């Protein structure tokens, strides 16, 4: 049994403009000790999904199920969630400065965290544990720096403090939401190395939320690609990069500056992501998909197995015969040429109105 089983998770928010469906039927599993990367662009619902699982989206309309180690989290009472959050599921966020309290020393905050979950631990023991943790995540002079305030640490060091705090109670699952997005590349490499080592030493499962496909390639075991609130494709790491099925995955990888070919034109995904308010039927990616055909506009494709690989699912009506794609692409290009959209300017149109 997987450590975390999420089934048909739906999250919607009421906004002045209508109901915003941030997550629309998301399902995934996380196995013990493995890393699942959830990748997607801004607004794809990747952060909302994990925040909902840990009960951090108040005011949202939530349905579906998320079973964590046998406990249902969706609809669980705040007492139940409080015993799980922090203790069994650790969390790190993108911006470590706004996640740490500026008025308290980092040591105080870690001690507070440990003792909030177990009052039987003495403050002195918790402090020793906090110092050890800071050492483990690679903060030099941990025993003196424990009394420093968050602003006295650099960005990379602050993220290490966050990791130390998230790992304080030996969680079995760590949710890392864009943990290195705010960091420089050399510091990012340090933080990723710390996460990798902690996973090896403690067997923690990790959900890594990111938009950076490079980080996915380096860190993950499995990958879920999200778009407009639902999973487009789920596959093992190498499968996703070398034998993906969904046109959105293909498009994401295609729009990266290639290693080598300088100054060649990139192949961006045309258009912009859809609004999540009143999304029409059919595949949400159809308006930007180079292969879209009639069925894509009328029926929403479910995640289904592709290439006879039980670990590889894709929400796309395309067959697995890749040769068919070229004729579909040609057909779509022909259609666009036949009926140019009225409001588009003549040269170099890449963004629709």
């Amino acid at each position, binding site marked *: 049994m997987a450590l975390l089983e999420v089934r048909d998770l739906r999250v919607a928010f009421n906004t002045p403009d209508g109901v915003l469906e941030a997550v629309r039927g998301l399902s995934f599993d996380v196995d013990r000790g493995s890393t699942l990367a959830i990748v997607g*662009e801004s607004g794809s619902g990747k952060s909302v999904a994990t925040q909902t699982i840990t009960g951090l989206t108040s005011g949202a309309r939530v349905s579906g199920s998320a079973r964590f180690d046998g406990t249902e989290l969706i609809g669980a009472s705040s007492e139940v969630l409080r015993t799980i959050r922090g203790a069994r599921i650790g969390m790190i966020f993108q911006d470590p400065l706004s996640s740490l309290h500026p008025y308290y020393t980092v040591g105080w905050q870690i001690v507070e965290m440990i003792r909030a979950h177990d009052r039987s631990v003495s403050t002195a023991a918790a402090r020793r544990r906090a110092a050890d943790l800071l050492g483990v995540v690679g903060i030099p002079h941990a025993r003196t720096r424990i009394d420093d305030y968050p602003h006295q640490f650099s960005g990379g060091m602050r993220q290490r403090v966050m990791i130390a705090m998230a790992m304080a109670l030996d969680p079995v699952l760590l949710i890392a939401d864009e943990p290195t997005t705010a960091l420089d*590349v050399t510091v990012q490499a340090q933080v990723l190395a710390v996460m990798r080592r902690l996973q090896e030493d403690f067997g923690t499962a990790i959900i890594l939320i990111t938009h950076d496909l490079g980080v996915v390639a380096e860190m993950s075991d499995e990958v879920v690609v999200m778009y407009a609130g639902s999973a487009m494709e789920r596959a093992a790491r190498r499968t996703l990069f070398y034998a993906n099925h969904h046109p959105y995955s293909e498009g994401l990888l295609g*729009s*990266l500056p290639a290693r080598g070919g300088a100054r060649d034109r990139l192949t961006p995904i045309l258009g912009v992501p859809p609004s999540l308010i009143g999304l029409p039927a059919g595949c949400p990616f159809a308006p930007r998909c180079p292969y879209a055909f009639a069925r894509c506009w009328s029926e929403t494709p479910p995640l289904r197995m592709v290439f006879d690989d039980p670990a590889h699912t894709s929400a796309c009506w395309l067959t697995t015969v890749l040769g068919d794609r070229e004729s579909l692409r040609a057909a779509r290009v022909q259609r666009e040429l036949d009926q140019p959209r009225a409001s588009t300017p003549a040269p170099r149109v890449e963004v629709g109105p």
Partner: protein
Amino acid sequence: MTEPLLRVEGLTKSFPVSSGSWRRDTAKVHAVDDVTLEIDAGETLGLVGETGCGKSTLARCMARLYDVTSGTVWFDGRDITHLDRREMRVVRRDVQMIFQDPYGSLNPRRRVGAIIGDPFVIHGTATGRELKTKVQDLMATVGLNPEHYNRFPAEFSGGQRQRIGVARALALRPKLVICDEPVSALDVSIQAQIINLLIDLQDEFSLTYLFITHDLSVVRHVSDRIAVMYLAKVVETAPTPALFSTTRHPYTRALLSALPVPDPDLADSREQIVLSGDLPTPTDPPSGCRFHTRCPKARQDCVATEPALRPVLGDTVEHPTACHHPLTIGEDLSLARPHIDAAQTVDDDAVPLGAAAPTEPGGESR
């Protein structure tokens, strides 16, 4: 050999740091320190480096948005270092900028047509109907719908806003466009659209670009030459292929190795150099070579003397490196260990991520 379009020589820019209850200027931070760099007409020079290395300050000095502390800026054969506002206005037609934040760099209360039309109005080159036609032509050129002339910036997506910024920069047909992290705030699929647009426009209008970014994969894709900055200094400059094939400076190599590659097999097999420590603070830069506190190859002479930026190991003049112990081809930097007299690098706590970990209590490097 023709003259470069832009040349800066010995450029230094320092800012005062004030502290204490009377906000007295107590120190100086050298954001750019003695930089000499050239940009040839028609080329794209990539400028890379981490947060706080001075790359944006250097660009702003080149555009004379900042007054330089010392050094000279030559543009198109003319010394523009000390031109006054009026004289600068003429030069500004030829030097334009595109900024990182497509939200912050457009006035939210003005219509797009007015924003893009501003350069024409300021320089008095078009009015009335002609102005509107010119603006709409520009909008079509950058892939915006000319009918959206009367919309506000908030009605556009991030990628489209960046197109507005590009249109405004191109309005007066500049010679040099300084792009300061133009795609960093955009999602990958949109990022590719803007990169394509910039490359197409360069071909169409024979533009020269200074392309500033921290993203090495982007800079590699667009640049003819790349300059790498570390703590206010240029440490290596080379034509793009040479920088990647014969990397000389250990910092450049570390930067390249830290970049996550979207290719699992390569990610698993390649050399990984994880630098220890953070960027030192530019108010009090390390002695000698500024990279010595984090460099795996640091030796005693690196602490003592600052290396000059010059070709090393038989490289061409196009490829200068500021390093006492440059890398040879195929050298494995991950095996190197620094050899410096203790004091600086001793660390009594557990430091699992490599040997030297300089610390700065209170060091704010970001």
